[in-house]
């Protein structure tokens, strides 16, 4: 009888330990996914920030005026001898709308495609979870302007979120389209860039 009780007791304890281990592994897995999203998002925003800085600092280099061809809050087009090769190129930044097919395939309802077009180069179509992009244009006194010839500085603000959510709702709480009660890892970067050739 004592042996049977020992067997039952050890089985129960083993089952509890196994459950704890599985729970721990589940949590570790969740943390790993979170870390991966965070890393991807951070890599994306740093890469995008460096591309934007690299390009915008060269606006107007060795080209005739006007150097900025088009400017609004989410798109920008400018001229530059971007690669110091003696050739003037036109660079254009723009965003897709929210219904673009690639971004529709992601869980995040706010992300958009980022496009970078450059004369003679393949267009970069980046699906990096861009949820916010805003350009503001400042004149020599730091006052916002829409006059392309008066622009002396460009304030850029970028927001990126993970494609997929860290689900924080229970199955019953989540809405059918999974848009509420979702959490996305996100990060912002902003900077005022002063292209010296303007």
């Amino acid at each position, binding site marked *: 009888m004592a042996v049977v009780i020992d067997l039952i007791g050890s089985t129960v304890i083993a089952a509890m330990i196994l459950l704890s281990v599985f729970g721990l592994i589940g949590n*570790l897995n969740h943390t790993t996914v979170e*870390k991966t999203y965070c890393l991807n998002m*951070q890599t994306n925003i*740093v890469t995008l920030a*460096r591309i934007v800085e690299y390009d915008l600092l060269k606006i107007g280099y060795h080209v005739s005026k006007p150097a900025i061809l088009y400017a609004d809050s989410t798109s920008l087009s400018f001229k530059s001898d971007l690669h*110091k090769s003696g050739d003037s190129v036109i660079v254009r930044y723009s965003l897709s709308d929210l219904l673009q097919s690639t971004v529709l395939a992601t869980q995040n309802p706010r992300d958009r495609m980022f496009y970078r077009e450059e004369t003679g180069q393949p267009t970069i179509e980046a699906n990096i979870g861009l949820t916010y992009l805003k350009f503001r244009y400042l004149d020599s006194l730091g006052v916002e302007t829409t006059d392309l010839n008066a622009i002396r500085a460009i304030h850029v603000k970028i927001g990126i979120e993970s494609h997929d959510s860290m689900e924080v709702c229970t199955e019953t709480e989540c809405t059918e389209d999974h848009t509420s009660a979702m959490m996305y890892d996100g990060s912002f970067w902003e900077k005022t860039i002063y292209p*010296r*050739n303007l």
Partner: protein
Amino acid sequence: MGSQSMVTVLGLIVLFSIFNNFLNDKERLCADNTYGYAKYTAARDIARSAIHLALKNMEVDGTFPFSGSLDGGTYTVTGVAIADTLRMTSTANFSDTVYTISTTMWRYPKPFPGVGAALGLNIDSVEFMMKGSALIDGRNYDSTGTTLVGSGDVAGVTTISSYDSATVAAFGSKINGSSDVTVDDSLADPALFVDEYIASADYRFDAIAGQPQTVFAGNQVWGTATSPKITFVNAGDSTNLLKFTGTIEGWGILVVKGNVQWSGTFEFHGLVVVYSDAVLDFEGMAAGTPQIIGSLLMGGPPHSEFEMRGTSEILYSSDAIDNAKYIGKLLAYRIVDWYE
């Protein structure tokens, strides 16, 4: 049973190690991302600061390459200055990150008056006197004052009124140039910029207050052709005399106030600005011909006195004036292009 437990424990250890390593790896990559961007911005800031430091160094000697350490990184600025154009490349290193900026700048003097004559007198009713074998020559000499260029000659003296030109014309036998005297009522007024020259002076000589005569003995060098300087000789009011007894050679801008006497060899290349009453006295020199090669501009209240004595000469030289324009402290820079 014991061996099974051992295997289970070892298996869990391996599993947790794998998870731990994976998480640590993500942490490291995150840190690398952040630190990589920080290194990039640090290197960029150093490269930009190095440009500013190199421009500041232009005031001292303006030699390239110019290098140093800043904010935990290093920088080297290479460059070349030709006339009014300055090209520089700044390379900064921070940790393993390198950042390079290339720029071309237009440099120009601020402020720098045009005289348009060997001697410009911005004085109403000037008391003008030339004694001995003094000479004012508006023909264009090279910057050493030894060779005539053959072009670019100007008038010997410019005044701001016909009345004053008549006063000066009385000494026409001691004046050469495209004409002896011209009238230009827009002649630059030294009062507008002399304060900046004085504030930027590299060398300054002041008469001792209350003493009728202050003597500076010994030879002096006030700048060179490759590194022109600003010198301020301040004799104070007309009751003082400032006297230099040694050999003096200077390049750049010389600001003179009051009665100054040179009794040694004197040779100045560039722009001489005289304000208030002044007597430039070269009398009593043992040998040689005291020369101002470039141009002299004088301003002051009505009836200010300008007098040249002895064997002194003012020889116009556009080269010497151009040289004086590029005194580092007086240069302003404008970006022509900038690549980073």
